[in-house]
């Protein structure tokens, strides 16, 4: 029905206006747009030779300003190019891991909340189990057992970050299921799929969306940490693996700050952007938070 679409469009427009009214959220969104642009375009713009250790001609450990904007690393590659090219992996891992984690969390949260009873209790105890083991230790264990690669990193992050989403979603599911319209849907003859699909999920989704943006921030930090500890995919360039190399090659003792600082700032910028967007979305969805 076109009326429904009209209304959805106006609802989205109103949501956007509320979002746009928050300067920090818009700044985060702009920063994010820039990061995505860099991630997509940089691999196309960088020549094949520029990052090839065997082909670079510049001297190693060159400080910034002398021909290279941010200096060079231990093999003579441009740090500026390395940082820009590392964006793609950080974003990709962050987004997919967060998506996977939120999907698992939502599924378990809705199931536990909807069915309740014995199954709900069991699922929540599993959730509690994952909540109490230190996420990083589990992620390290997982990525050292499974074969090296980007997939492993994504899986390790997703498997350790879903419990908080599950808890939040379960609480919201319980709140929605207590409303009389769910009773009406049951009385109309609606089964589990109908109740969860038509009434619970749409009510939970805004919350999930906010949770996703905040989880992305966590996932990016987790990816960098794992890569920094040398558990990342050795064939791919990311901010975490740059820090790992810097550490290995003794950038600190050589006082080569230009090798350490840029990837760190990259992580901070992207995480900050996601957090700002997430907080702004939270305010749009939950007007009580509006100050």
């Amino acid at each position, binding site marked *: 029905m076109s*009326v429904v679409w009209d*209304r959805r469009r106006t609802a989205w427009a109103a949501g956007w206006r509320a979002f746009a009214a928050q300067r920090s959220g818009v700044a985060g969104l702009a920063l994010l747009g820039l990061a995505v642009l860099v991630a997509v375009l940089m691999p196309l713009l960088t020549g094949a030779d520029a990052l090839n250790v065997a082909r670079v001609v510049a001297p190693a450990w060159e400080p910034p300003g002398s021909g290279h904007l941010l200096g060079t690393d231990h093999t003579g590659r441009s740090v500026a190019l390395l940082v820009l090219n590392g964006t793609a992996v950080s974003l990709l891992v962050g987004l997919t891991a967060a998506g996977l984690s939120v999907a698992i969390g939502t599924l378990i949260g809705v199931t536990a909340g909807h069915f309740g009873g014995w199954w709900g209790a069991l699922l929540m105890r599993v959730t509690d189990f994952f909540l109490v083991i230190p996420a990083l230790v589990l992620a390290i264990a997982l990525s050292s057992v499974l074969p090296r690669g980007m997939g492993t990193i994504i899986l390790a992050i997703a498997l350790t970050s879903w419990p908080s989403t599950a808890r939040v979603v379960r609480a919201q599911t319980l709140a929605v299921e207590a409303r*009389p*319209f769910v*009773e*009406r849907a049951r*009385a*109309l*003859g609606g089964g589990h799929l109908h109740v969860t699909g038509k009434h619970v999920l749409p*009510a939970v989704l805004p919350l999930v969306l906010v949770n996703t943006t905040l989880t992305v921030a966590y996932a990016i930090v987790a990816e960098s940490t794992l890569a920094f500890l040398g558990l990342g995919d050795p064939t791919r360039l990311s901010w975490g693996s740059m820090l790992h190399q810097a550490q290995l090659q003794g950038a600190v003792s050589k006082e080569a700050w230009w090798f350490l600082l840029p990837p760190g700032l990259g992580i901070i910028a992207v995480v900050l952007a996601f957090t700002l967007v997430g907080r702004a979305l939270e305010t749009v969805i939950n007007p009580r938070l509006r100050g």
Partner: protein
Amino acid sequence: MLELRDLTVHYGSRAAVRDVSLTVERGQTLGLAGESGSGKTTLGLSVLRLLPRSAELSGSVLLDGEDVAEMSWGRLRAVRWTQASVVFQGAMHALNPVRRVGAQIAEPMELHGVSGSVAELLEQVELPASKARAYPHELSGGQRQRVMIAMALACDPRLIVADEPTTALDVIVQAQVLGLMRRLVDERSLSLLMISHDLSVLTSTCDDLAVMYQGEIVERGRATSVISSPRHPHTAALAAAFPTIGAPEFRFAGQAPVREPLLRTEELQVNFGPLRAVDGVSLEVGRGEIVALVGESGSGKTTLARTIMGLQRPSSGRVIFDGAPIPLKGKALKAYRRQVQLVLQDPTSALNPRHSVYEAVAEGLRIHAIPGDEESLVTAAVERSELRPAELFLPSLPHELSGGQLQRVVIAGALALGPRLLVADEPVASLDASVRGEILALLLRLRAELELAALIITHDLGLAWNIADRVAVMYQGRIVEQGTVEQVLLDPRHEYTRKLLAAVPSTTRA
């Protein structure tokens, strides 16, 4: 004592109260009647300048000759509670849940440096002194309301503003609280401004009556004369919502012939742990028959309804529909639910706020994958429940409609499936007086046109008198009496039914 002169209150551009002039003499009791949104609560709060900041006030409120709007902050504090006090709506929310009620009653006395004893106040509202140590959740609704009244009396004020003091209480408790208020007003020669949507409550407590409609006072006079010969049509509508049981002009249903049974429960029992909510209930509803199930809150009537719907499993006994026991799960239960439909008490929460009217009505059709053109089926159901023209309502969202319209949407959603029995849990309790009659008439018309039977669950004996063919009275999980409306309501056998009938406040008070 209290005088309002040309009082007008605006919220933004909307006027909640318009040009109201009103006086309450010393010792006078005035009832202020009106529907939700008529501005009666706003008026009550303006007496002690308790309105939110967003309210703009013009005209004047004189309390004992002094303008409330011009009082200094300190003077206002001194006047609040010592000259006039308020019994707020909803005692559960107006009391602090983490403090003992004794401390809460003493609070205004401490603030104003008035001496007095909590035990004495409790005694006045007929509560044992030991209740001072109780927390609000440990008290029943009626006891909480008594605490609120004790609190209002604490500083010995001369005017009490009571905003819906007995709404949400059961009839018997309501009668007790009203009796208490009458006695206190007499003994202490208090002035009382009582606000309610319920004319019968007001007439049983107040000498004078003012009727508010859309922010204006439309009628004012002695309570008895306003009720017996209302001049404004709105007053007449309000009065009609509180029928006199036994009066033929309030009986809308015709004489029902004996019909073959459609639904029958046999020795139905439902336990929640050690608690027995439904205790051996045998009840029958015939084809096209309207049966009213009457009882107080906690009598197990809602649990019984849920069990009949198959939403709650019986602990023992069974429900028989159209000659066969109702299925407890799977496809058969789903098919059964096409035959029996539920109408809930509060239509604003019974509809998903994100779904349009069209989606809400089509929900059942989609669940049961009913063949045919969905749009025309939905339109037919919506028109059947008298929302015309249907095209105007179909795209609306619940928050855009009024309570009465929403209840029609809920009924339309039920009708779309072509049920044979409607189970309605307090179908008009949350609706305004003027809408109540329309919804009841709709139920009767549906019965005549579709031979739709209905089990109506209510605490309102007047409603049973209005439309039911038979009445069953439920008390502590058991049906204590059932029979035709005339038998049960005019010639009650069981003691509890008599008590219930005696407690119904009547607009024709001697």
